[in-house]
């Protein structure tokens, strides 16, 4: 790779820096990184024979998925024994059999992610008994990163594939991992989402047209070259509302993320990923009809757990709306492939819900599969009735990839600037004020910022997808003290991205209007 091509720190524009010199460079590097990650993780699993792997969100999870789905570098480790760092404390202590546990993260610089995982484990078992069987595997370590013994005084040593990396080298590896994930079609978010596949029987434009029935649609390409579509449902559409009894009391379903992502998986095959995050009003809201039979008692174990389960329940409805639009377009448009309830993970091509075990460790997959099938059946019935009924169809919004990437970067700039302003404001009165984690903006706040550019909401929604897929933005769940609610927040992905954005803004200024 040409070093200058990805030197984003000074004169070379960051927006263009992510494009490698040639497609071949990108493919070769992605392959190499996949091979290295496979070798590293396989060896770690073989050496430590872990009962559980704790993956550090989000890239750790996405990498594991990309390897599990890879044919040439397939990693054989069951999803049921993988848990996301986000939900460690949501599961009972007996879930962890004691030892050994492997914590996996792709990169380490400041070490805050791994430190938080170790702190959580220490909190669960103050005697540090859990930690005795813990091993930390980090694929690439920056030269500033310590090797583990200093983390929380835990003495948990690290293994690594690369270490002592200078900042440019560290950045290059990060970029190539992201490229590998994009070429594999693996998203940063997809371990917490349902996924249903469809096979197109008519050309792609007909598919887009069908999706635009009572929704806004924007097609775009990921950097890996795959087709993506963002389908955004409007707040004021009475056809797309949630039954009152379904969600926890007081759940807010407007001004939130309420969309469907469609991603190309293969020849004429697409994944449908419904995404919905109602904000919840209290630390632990009441939920008369909580789906305990599907998710177990963790549903009401904490505000955060309730938030995630609510999101999945709401997403089932978003899935139904999307499938309904496809069925309404006629029988010959798509074949819907529902996830297989129980399947062999060695079949990397199969579509299942097994990956949800990472974010929902106690989920009953059979029960959930039935709910997905029910949503599909309802969509089929309702869609059939709608056939032939005239309806306003929104034509897909056409924005070039280059323009979308430019806007995505501008959005990231203003998000970072807004967060920096908040930090500066806090520090004016308390110079030692520690920046909490997470420290991000809600979807509503970001939509408000984007509105000042005059961009349609669906375009902004696609910008979220691009920024998340590019590893520029990460999502977290946070309790908003001012609004007193649990909500989804978005923040720049780590200090490296933040520093680049700040530097870029310092050199170029904020985009017009800010």
């Amino acid at each position, binding site marked *: 790779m040409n070093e200058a091509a990805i030197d984003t720190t000074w004169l*070379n524009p960051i927006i263009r820096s992510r494009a490698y010199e040639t497609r071949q460079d990108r493919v070769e590097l992605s392959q190499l990184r996949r091979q290295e990650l496979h070798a590293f993780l396989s060896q770690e699993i073989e050496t430590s024979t872990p009962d559980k792997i704790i993956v550090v969100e989000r890239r750790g999870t996405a990498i594991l998925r990309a390897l599990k789905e890879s044919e040439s570098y397939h990693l054989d480790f069951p999803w049921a024994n993988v848990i996301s760092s986000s939900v460690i404390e949501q599961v009972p202590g007996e879930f962890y059999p004691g030892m050994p546990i492997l914590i996996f993260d792709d990169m380490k610089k400041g070490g805050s992610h791994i430190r938080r995982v170790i702190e959580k484990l220490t909190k669960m078992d103050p005697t540090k008994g859990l930690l005795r069987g813990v091993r930390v595997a980090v694929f690439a370590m920056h030269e500033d990163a310590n090797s583990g013994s200093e983390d929380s005084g835990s003495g948990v040593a690290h293994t690594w594939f690369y270490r002592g990396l200078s900042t440019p080298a560290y950045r290059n590896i990060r970029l190539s991992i992201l490229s590998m994930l994009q070429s594999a079609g693996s998203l940063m978010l997809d371990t917490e989402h349902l996924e249903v596949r469809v096979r197109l029987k008519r050309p792609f434009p007909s598919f887009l047209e069908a999706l635009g029935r009572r929704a806004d649609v924007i097609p775009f390409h990921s950097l890996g070259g795959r087709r993506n579509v963002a389908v955004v449902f409007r707040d004021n559409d009475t056809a797309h509302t949630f039954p009152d009894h379904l969600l926890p009391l007081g759940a807010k379903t407007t001004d939130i993320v309420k969309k469907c992502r469609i991603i190309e998986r293969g020849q004429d095959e697409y994944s449908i990923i419904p995404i919905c995050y109602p904000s919840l009003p209290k630390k632990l809201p009441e939920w008369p009809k909580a789906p305990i039979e599907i998710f177990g008692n963790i549903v009401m174990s904490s505000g955060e757990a309730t938030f995630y389960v609510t999101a999945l329940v709401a997403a089932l409805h978003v899935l139904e709306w999307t499938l309904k639009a496809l069925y309404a377009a006629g029988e010959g448009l798509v074949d819907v492939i529902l996830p297989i309830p129980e399947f062999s993970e060695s079949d990397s091509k199969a579509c299942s819900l097994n990956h949800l075990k990472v974010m929902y460790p106690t989920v009953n997959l059979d029960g959930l599969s039935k709910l997905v099938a029910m949503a599909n059946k309802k969509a089929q019935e309702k869609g059939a009735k709608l056939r032939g009924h005239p309806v306003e169809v929104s034509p897909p919004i056409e924005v070039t990839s280059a323009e979308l990437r430019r806007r995505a970067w501008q959005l990231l700039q203003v998000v970072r600037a807004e967060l920096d302003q908040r930090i500066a404001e806090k520090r*004016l009165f308390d110079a030692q004020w520690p920046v909490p984690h997470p420290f991000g903006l809600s979807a509503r706040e970001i939509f408000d910022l984007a509105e000042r550019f005059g961009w349609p909401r669906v375009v902004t929604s696609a910008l979220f997808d691009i920024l998340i897929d590019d590893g520029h933005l990460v999502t977290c769940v946070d309790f908003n003290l001012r609004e007193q609610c649990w909500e989804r927040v978005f923040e720049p992905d780590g200090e490296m991205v933040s520093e680049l954005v700040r530097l870029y803004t310092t050199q170029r200024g904020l985009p017009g209007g800010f």
Partner: protein
Amino acid sequence: MDSDAVNPYEVYKGIYECELGKQLERVFRAVVFVLHNWCQFGILKPSISQRSPRSPAYEKSDNGCITLIEFDKLMNIVCRVWGKMFSAHGEKHLEKGTINTLSDQEKQRIVRFKPPLDEIPGRHGPGEARKGDSDDSPCYAVDMLTTLSVHEGYPYIDIKKNDDFRSSTGPRRADRESVKSLEEIVDHKDYVTPGIGTFEDEVFWKGFTTREKDFLVELANALKHLGPIEIRALGTHRTGEQTLEEIRRELRWAGVERDKIITCLEDKLKIRSEDARKFQNFAREAVLKADENRKPYEEAFQKVLDELSSPDVKQAFKDSQKTASEIWEYKSMKDLGKTVHMLYQLADYIWAIAYFDEHPDARKAQTTRKAQEAMHCWENGSVYAKQLGLPDLVDKVFATDRDCITDKVRERLIEVLRACV
């Protein structure tokens, strides 16, 4: 400035060693040049009775000096216009990566960089600052310049104490041994004058392109016609959205002080006058930003436009600052203006109560300046307070048998304060 002062072009080696440091150093020099022009124009200005129509409409500070706050705002204006000049006359080369392939002659015709600073909210409005690495606090440019002057012995600017300005034997110089913090030494109301003695072309403009120099000279010539209040208004405001956010920020800060006052009232304690004073100050700032800055802004904006002759500098100025009507007629600004005026009256009222609670004698006769101020605030706030169901006579606030606020007034104050921000 001392004749043996350090070479201003080699200061702060740490930052000078990198490209960003060079840029920052040039920005400091440019801002001091603008300040120099402003001060010179002030000193040469005719007396008030002889003032020509082109002279500042507002009285300049003593001897044509400018305070640190106003200097901070002057820097905002310079950096904003500079940023827009860069967007129009340099950014495309950076974008294409062709900047290093230009001939020397071609380079002279462009503005090569934007000031490497960002506008960040500060205690006294927005100020240019360097963002810290990671989540560190920002470093304000005015603090950098002050540090260079006071601690490091690199006086781009000289700072003179506000209260002893006339009797001062000279500007304070670098005091490397001093362990005092910047805040202990310098006040935002202290005066600032240029610390660089020579502005001759060859020496001073070293490192600038012809285009950069030309626009800075033109901008300095325009800005020198502004009075301090105009500079403050122009540097504080930029767009409607930004002004709304500035006002909201003052209200948020006022809200913090308001909460402290409510806590005191709920605990049946005296309202601390320092909390009431801060509450009042934030409310005052909100009024300035929501309303009173409009007139000086309008005049400053027009003056700068009148004085600028180069079309591209004029355009850069217009791109960097919205017109007064675009700012103060933006969205909900008018409603917010009414709200903050009411808040300010209430804040005056609260401060007067806090003062009279601490100084019962002052309720009858105001013999000190502060007591007179308290009575003035009372008069300002009591008309509105009466509308809110609060007493308009001082004596009715305090119980006659106990020397404290009556329970009825206390409860009403809590209700009113809760609803005010």
